[in-house]
């Protein structure tokens, strides 16, 4: 059983090698729509998948945030990905499986996954 004592150990271990992260110029920004429409369509597992993938790959320059209704309820879950110095890319009807590809191809390899974008859906 996990305990708060164990958290204390993790803390002591982690404090030494804290990575400087976020708010830098090279930051990648991921925003997940988490309004009622997004949540009903499956935004929770999509958000979880982003957080997990990014943590697993230790992508310290990526911030994941949530926002309200992005405005196209029928295409939820919607995710916006912005690479530094580039226009934002809007992905629609996202799922945890699609998240793995977006992280690997777009965030890591800088290749937009065109087939998942709002442009391809409309």
């Amino acid at each position, binding site marked *: 059983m*996990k305990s*708060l004592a164990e*958290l204390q150990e*993790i803390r002591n271990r982690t404090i030494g090698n804290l990575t400087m992260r976020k708010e830098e110029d090279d930051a990648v920004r991921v925003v997940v729509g988490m309004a009622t429409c997004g*949540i009903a369509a499956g935004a*929770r597992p999509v*958000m979880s998948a982003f957080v997990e993938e990014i943590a697993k790959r230790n992508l310290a320059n990526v911030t994941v*945030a949530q926002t309200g209704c992005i405005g196209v309820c029928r295409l939820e879950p919607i995710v916006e990905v912005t690479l530094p110095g580039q226009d934002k890319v809007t992905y629609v009807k996202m799922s945890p499986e699609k998240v793995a590809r977006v992280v690997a191809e777009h965030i890591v390899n800088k290749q937009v996954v065109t087939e998942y974008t709002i442009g391809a859906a409309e």
Partner: protein
Amino acid sequence: MEELSLHILDIVQNSVAAKAELIEVEIVEDIEADTLTITITDNGCGMSEEMVKKVVDPFTTGRKTRRVGLGIPLFKLAAELTGGDFEIESELGKGTRILARFGHSHIDRQPLGDIASTMHQLIVMNENTDFLYVHKVNGNEFKLDTREVKEILGGVSLAEYEVMVWLLEYLKENEDSLYKTVGKE
């Protein structure tokens, strides 16, 4: 919504949007009374009386003002469909308290669902907001106070991978054990 925990996620997002510093989420399952009661209390910006009326029943206002959301009406409806009830109290500048009571064994009651992931996401994504989470199932109780967690962490972020993984496991294990011991009494 397929799960009560998704309603909770949605309703708590409103508290976050209302700039609450502390959000309390309490779930009480009382098998004997056959009720499941969810209470969400925040110290955010609150709402005027007029606003409360509008958000509970967005279709009563004849005028086409701004688009009013569906989160609260959906939560209310879900409770009422199980023979339960719904209460909302709010005061500008003070905060908001929303209570939804469900018939525990009612056929139309949605399952609680993945409450561990729900609370995990809320806590990790809103690091500057404190959460007090309490889940009671008959005599068993699980309580998580993020103020306590943050004190232990002493500046280490909840978003640190190891911390995040620990928190999810901690939530899952405690949630599971709430139900495991129920049968034994």
